[in-house]
C-alpha cells in the first residue's frame, strides 16, 4: 500500500514536472528582443536583493518587538500588538504601500523610495513573523518553564537560556517561508516607482511585448534569492538538532 502510494506520488509529480518543462522548452522565444534590457533587469534584481536584505533584518526586529508586546503582562501592550498584527495581516499590502508612501511619508518629509519601501515591507512581514515567534515560544512545554523556575532562573534568564534557544529551532522552517514571501512581496513596491526587479521586467515587457522573455528571467531571479534562504534554513535546522 505504501509503495503503491509512493509510486503514485512519483508518477504524478514526475509527469507534472515533465509537462511544464516541455511547455516551457517548446515555446518559440525571441530572446534577442529583451537583450537590450538585460542590464536593467540585473540592476532591478540587485535592487530587490538590497530591499529584501535590509527589510528582512528590520522585519525580525519588528516581529520580535511585537512578540514581546503580545506576550507582555501589560494588557494594553498585548492589545496594541494584537491590533497591529490583525490590521496588517488582514489588509492588502498594496493598500499599505500606497498609504505609507503617499500619505504617511510626505507628512514625515521622507522622500527616499528605498527607505520607505524597506520600512513598509518590514512592517508588513514583521506582523507575520511575530505570530510565528509567538507560536514558537508558546510551543515550549510547561515543564521546561517549571524546571527553569525550580533551578532559580529569573524570567529573563529563562527566555535567554531555555525558551528562545529551543523556540528558534522550531520556528526556522516557518520563518524561512516568511522570508521567501518577503522577497516576493517586495515586487509590489513597483507601485511607488522603486526600480526593483518586477518593475524592470514590466518595463521590458511593455517595450518589447516579449512577455515570457521578460517574466521567465524574473522567476529565475526570485528563485535565486529564495532558494538560498531555504537551503540555509535547512542547514541551520540540521546543525541545531539535538534529538539524535
Amino acid at each position, binding site marked *: 500500500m505504501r509503495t503503491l502510494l509512493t509510486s503514485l506520488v512519483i508518477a504524478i509529480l514526475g509527469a507534472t514536472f515533465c509537462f511544464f518543462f516541455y511547455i516551457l522548452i517548446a515555446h518559440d522565444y525571441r530572446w534577442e528582443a529583451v537583450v537590450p534590457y538585460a542590464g536593467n533587469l540585473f540592476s532591478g534584481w540587485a535592487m530587490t536583493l538590497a530591499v529584501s536584505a535590509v527589510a528582512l533584518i528590520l522585519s525580525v526586529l519588528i516581529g520580535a518587538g511585537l512578540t514581546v508586546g503580545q506576550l507582555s503582562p501589560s494588557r494594553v501592550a498585548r492589545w496594541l500588538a494584537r491590533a497591529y498584527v490583525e490590521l496588517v495581516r488582514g489588509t492588502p499590502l498594496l493598500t499599505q504601500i500606497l498609504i505609507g508612501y503617499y500619505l504617511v511619508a510626505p507628512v514625515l518629509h521622507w522622500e527616499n523610495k528605498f527607505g520607505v519601501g524597506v520600512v513598509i515591507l518590514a512592517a508588513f512581514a514583521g506582523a507575520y513573523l511575530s505570530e510565528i515567534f509567538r507560536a514558537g515560544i508558546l510551543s515550549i512545554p510547561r*515543564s521546561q518553564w517549571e524546571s527553569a*523556575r*525550580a*533551578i*532559580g532562573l529569573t524570567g529573563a534568564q529563562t527566555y535567554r*537560556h531555555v525558551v528562545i534557544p*529551543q523556540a528558534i529551532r522550531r520556528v526556522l522552517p516557518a520563518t524561512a517561508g516568511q522570508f521567501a514571501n518577503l522577497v516576493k512581496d517586495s515586487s509590489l513596491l513597483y507601485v511607488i516607482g522603486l526600480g526593483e526587479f518586477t518593475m524592470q521586467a514590466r518595463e521590458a515587457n511593455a517595450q518589447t511585448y516579449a512577455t515570457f522573455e521578460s517574466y521567465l528571467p524574473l522567476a529565475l531571479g526570485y528563485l535565486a534569492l529564495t532558494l538560498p534562504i531555504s537551503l540555509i534554513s535547512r542547514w541551520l535546522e540540521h546543525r541545531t538538532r*539535538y534529538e539524535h
Partner: protein
Amino acid sequence: MNIELRGLSRRYGATQALRDVSLRVGNGVRVLALIGPSGGGKSTLLRLIGGLEVPDAGEIEIDQTLLDRREDPLRSHRRRLGFLFQSFNLFPHLTALENIALPLVHVHGKSAAEADETARACLSRFRLADHAEKHPAQLSGGQQQRVALARALAHRPRLLLLDEPTSALDPEMTAEVLEVIEELCREGQEIILSTHEMGFARAVADEVVFLSGGRILEAGTAAKLFDTPQTTEVKAFLSRVMRY
C-alpha cells in the same frame, strides 16, 4: 530539617488540592516521605514548600523563617533548594554537562571553569562521567533522572525535594535511581520526597506523612505508619498497594 506548616490551603479551579494542612517536622528528621493516593495533595505540598507556588491560606516556616509570598524572595528560597520532578526535568538543547553548569553559572555566580569542574564531579559521582557530552535524548530515562538529580545537587542545597522521581521509569531504571537517592539519604542529605514506592519510603524515611483528599490523615515514623496504621483509609491503601 526544621519545618512548620500552619493551616495550608491551595485550590486549583474547582479542585481543593490542600485543605488546612498543618505539620511540624523537627531536627531529628532527615528524610520525610509523602505517600498516599494520586491527587491526594503530595505534589502540591512539595510545590508550596519549594516556593514554586504560594498557598491561598496558611504559612510555611523553614528554620524559623517565614516563607515570603513575593517572587524575588521566593526565587532566593528556590535557589537554596534542589528539585527533581517526575520527568522532563532536563533542557533538551543542552548536554548533560551544560544542564548542570547552566544554573551554577547564571544562578550561583560561578565562573565557567568552576562550573564545568563541579558539573563533571557531580556526573562522576553518579557514574555518568562518560555521558557528559550527550544530550538528554541520547540518554535512557534512568540516566536522565540521574543527570537531573546531579543538577539538583550541584550547588549543595540544604534540602532536596523529589516529586515522584521514579514514576515515569520502568522497574530497572527505577532501581538505578532509587539506589542513588538511597546513597544520598545515607550521606545525611535532607530530603522530602513524594513516592509510590512504599518499600523505598519505609526503608529511607525517618518520618512518613499520608495525604489524601488534600488532608494529612496520618503522620509518624515509618515503622509506626506502615506497621500500625490508625485510620481505615490508610489501612485499606497500604493493604492494596502492598498486596502484590
